[in-house]
């Protein structure tokens, strides 16, 4: 309509005047232009017809050097040598929007000399790449992926994923066999049932029985193998589990049916054998599937970038494996980087963000002979420091070691469904024996009594019971994912529903962990463009929030090129323009330039002075997250005890606590203090949910019944958390509680349905009134009821 135009590469629409014209094509940025030309040069233009009008992310050029990917440390951890002697790596590709993207990546990689195989999974964006390392290096592959407008990072596929994939495949195979055989048995059974009512000759019945028997054999012994295995391990630990019930029921029915077939008299129950196995297997498969999906999401969250440090040796800076750094080595850290070792600064100074370790929200200024701690990160500091501990003994590693013991101390809440099925299984087995003996003593023939005994097991077939929990939790988990909540395990839904205490971390959980402008005092009018230009080039959190404030509150801001510009770490910025001197920064900087200040509060203040006179004052605090107050109120209404723990000082802690009306809060806590506090709650028999995001929360998260971590938190925090809030909002916390409660009540309803069904049918079976057709139909009906009831909440769920 207007002069909006779609970029030839990414298809995002922009004003025509802003775009780069190139030979009839229009591009929004040089990145898109570059990719477009690369694709035409490589003969891959057909990508655009395949992708049609899918909107892509424009490529950026701000990647760190890909040569890190070639380091021995990285190869050690992520690159495997496969059986043919080629190298293999698992990557996650970022920026895949459509199947054409998958096509393009695979094509582009296949065209590279030395790439043997590139296989990208569209569903989870994971890629497996096989290449010959003597022809090209991994960095070249990464560069290629970046050049065509995507990004890639490695993930560790060896542990969880391989196992999950193998398990899923195994279940696929088993289910394929079970479903195929069950469906065939069903149509043979139709003939049997018809014969039951209208008469059938014995020889035809035998033929049908034999066919059913042949079909049921692989179902029982191949697909049903998991139940035998489960029953065996159950018996070994002296637990009567559902697997044992399924295994004994199916096995005895199977042999009884074989006996009937050879005896050529009575009814065979091969259809029940395969139906039981198939239904319960589907329930188990659903559990496996939800675990696999959770694993996929987690791999995306914990981006693995090469973990190495720059070491200053013999006057040159070289990359070094973390484990190869010795005490006394000099480590180089640049602004924006993470500190991975403990040490003492010997050169340079600047601000550090220690919030993830201490909970302190304000940046900490450090200079020569100050200590730096692993796990923090540099904001604007370029420093050299001498390592005082090697990696194994660093603060970060020792926390991880402590973590292992914390996880072992995690209380195990036995799940209601498991406990119920255990009792249920033993009860049914007993009842079945009892029925058999009573019938036999009454007196009836051995065959009749055996059949009635078996029919109790068949009718009580835990199909509905086995489906009750997995279907309900699957619905709960998928609701969670839709709302940005990832439950790592299904059982956590139930534990969370039972929680009565919620412990919250302050920095990063309740607050944004970034200072924001709360008040602006203008003393003398001035051009806001000057201040904007002054703070624009700094990546200090205070400068960037002032920049954001000006952007959103003033119009017509232009950028100015200063004649002189200087940043002083932890102080502020000086600049000169047309003989005017501009100074923006904290109190110390003002004192340094002999500027008089008469406005002081406990909050963070940014002063802006022109030619030695303060013209504007900005007050900043670490603001609360959106709707924090509402959510806390809501948690209280739900009857939860709300407690706030923080490593921050008393002033900031009480400020937040009073605003949120949290009466119970503790401050200046170390990571161990937090964990101990959780333990003390356990001693009072509380079920505790802990919510946190930083490294200082990991011990507490691990020890709580349910640890909830924020998706933007630290890698370790995400590893430790049982539940991850992907969008970091507190609203998700409320949703998570709601979902777990809904799911838990759904599980209870489902269990109730299946138990009521059993309460009606088991006495009938014990009295010997159940014919095979009724057994088969009622089995399916009860399962359908349970599944239908679970799907109901998908429609019921509203925000």
């Amino acid at each position, binding site marked *: 309509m207007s002069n909006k135009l779609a970029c030839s590469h990414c298809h995002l629409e922009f004003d025509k005047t802003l775009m780069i014209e190139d030979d009839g094509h229009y591009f929004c940025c040089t990145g898109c232009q570059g990719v477009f030309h690369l694709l035409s040069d490589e003969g891959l233009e057909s990508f655009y017809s*395949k992708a049609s009008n899918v909107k892509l992310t424009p490529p950026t050029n701000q990647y760190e050097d890909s040569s890190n990917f070639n380091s021995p440390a990285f190869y050690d951890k992520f690159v495997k*040598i496969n059986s*043919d*002697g*080629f190298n293999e790596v698992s990557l996650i590709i970022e920026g895949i929007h459509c*199947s054409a993207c*998958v*096509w393009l990546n695979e*094509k582009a990689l*296949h065209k590279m000399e*030395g790439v*043997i*195989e590139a296989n*990208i*999974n*569209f*569903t989870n964006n994971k890629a497996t790449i096989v290449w*010959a390392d*003597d*022809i090209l290096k991994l960095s070249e592959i990464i560069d290629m992926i970046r050049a065509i407008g995507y990004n890639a990072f490695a993930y560790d596929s060896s542990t969880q994923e391989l196992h999950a*994939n193998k398990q899923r*495949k195994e279940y*696929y*195979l088993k289910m*394929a*066999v079970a479903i*195929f055989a069950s469906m*065939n048995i069903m149509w*043979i059974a139709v003939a049997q049932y018809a014969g039951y009512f209208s008469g059938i000759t014995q*020889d*035809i019945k035998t*033929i*049908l029985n034999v*066919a059913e028997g*042949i*079909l049921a054999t692989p179902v029982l012994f191949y697909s049903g193998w998991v139940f035998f295995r489960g029953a065996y391990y159950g018996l070994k630990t002296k637990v009567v589990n559902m697997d044992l019930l399924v295994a004994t029921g199916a096995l005895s029915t199977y042999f009884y049916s074989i006996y009937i077939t050879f005896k050529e008299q009575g009814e065979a129950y091969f259809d029940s054998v395969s139906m039981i196995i198939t239904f319960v297997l589907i329930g188990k498969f659903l559990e496996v599937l939800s675990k696999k999906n959770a694993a996929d999401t987690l791999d995306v969250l914990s981006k693995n970038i090469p973990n190495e440090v720059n070491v200053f040796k013999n006057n040159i800076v070289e990359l070094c494996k973390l484990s190869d750094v010795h005490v006394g080595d000099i480590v180089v850290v640049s602004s924006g980087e993470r500190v991975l070792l403990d040490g003492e600064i010997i050169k340079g100074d600047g601000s550090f963000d220690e919030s993830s370790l201490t909970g302190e929200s304000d940046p900490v200024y450090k200079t020569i002979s100050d200590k730096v701690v692993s796990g923090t990160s540099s904001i604007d500091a370029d420093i050299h420091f001498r390592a005082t501990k090697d990696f194994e003994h660093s603060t970060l590693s020792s926390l991880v070691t402590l973590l292992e013991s914390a996880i072992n101390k995690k209380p195990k809440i036995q799940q209601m469904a498991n406990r119920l099925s255990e009792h249920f299984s033993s009860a049914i087995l007993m009842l079945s024996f009892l029925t058999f003996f009573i019938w036999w003593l009454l007196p009836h023939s051995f065959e009749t009594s055996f059949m009635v005994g078996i029919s109790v097991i068949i009718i009580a077939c835990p199909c509905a019971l086995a489906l009750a929990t997995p279907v309900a939790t699957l619905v709960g988990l998928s609701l969670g994912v839709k709302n940005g909540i990832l439950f790592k395990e299904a059982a956590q839904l139930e534990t969370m529903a039972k929680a009565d205490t919620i412990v919250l971390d302050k920095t990063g959980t309740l607050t944004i962990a970034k200072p924001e402008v709360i008040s602006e005092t203008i003393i003398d009018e001035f051009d806001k463009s000057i201040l904007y230009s002054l703070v624009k080039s700094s990546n200090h959190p205070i400068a960037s929030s002032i920049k954001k404030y000006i952007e959103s509150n003033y119009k017509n801001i232009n950028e100015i090129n200063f004649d002189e510009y200087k940043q002083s770490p932890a102080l502020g910025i000086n600049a000169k323009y047309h003989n005017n001197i501009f100074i923006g920064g904290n109190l110390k900087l003002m004192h340094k330039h002999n500027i008089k200040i008469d406005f002081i509060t406990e909050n963070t203040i940014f002063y802006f002075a022109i030619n030695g006179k303060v013209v504007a004052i900005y007050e900043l605090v670490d603001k609360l997250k959106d709707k924090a107050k509402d959510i806390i109120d809501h948690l209280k209404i739900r009857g939860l005890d709300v407690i706030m723990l923080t490593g921050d000082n008393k002033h900031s802690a009480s400020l937040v606590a009073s605003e949120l009306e949290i009466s119970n809060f503790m401050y200046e806590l170390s990571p161990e203090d937090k964990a101990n506090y959780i333990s003390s709650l356990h001693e009072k028999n509380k079920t505790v949910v802990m919510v946190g995001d930083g490294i200082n929360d990991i011990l507490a998260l691990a020890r709580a019944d349910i640890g909830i971590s924020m998706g933007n938190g630290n890698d370790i925090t995400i590893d430790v958390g049982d539940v991850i809030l992907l969008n970091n909002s507190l609203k998700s916390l409320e949703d998570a509680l709601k979902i777990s409660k809904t799911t838990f009540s759904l599980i209870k309803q489902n269990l109730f349905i299946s138990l009521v069904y059993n309460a009606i049918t088991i006495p009938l079976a014990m009295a010997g009134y159940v014919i095979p057709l009724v057994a088969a139909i009622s089995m399916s009906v009860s399962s359908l009821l349970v599944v239908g009831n679970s799907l109901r909440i998908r429609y019921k769920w509203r925000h």
Partner: protein
Amino acid sequence: MDSWVISMMLGASLFLGAVALGAFLWAIKNGQFDDEEKFLNATKFDGEDELNDAVNQERKKEALKKDYRPE
């Protein structure tokens, strides 16, 4: 006579079914259903080029395998 016809028909149909099942199991094992989305989209990108690409890739692998000497 009747029972012979029935057993033959049952046998034949179950055999055919089993062959199809076997093929399906082979495909699962082969990794063809690892990615549901890609499997469904594969029809869109099916053509001569793709076939050639796959063959070339296979040749490249063989060629490299011959001269590849792991250290």
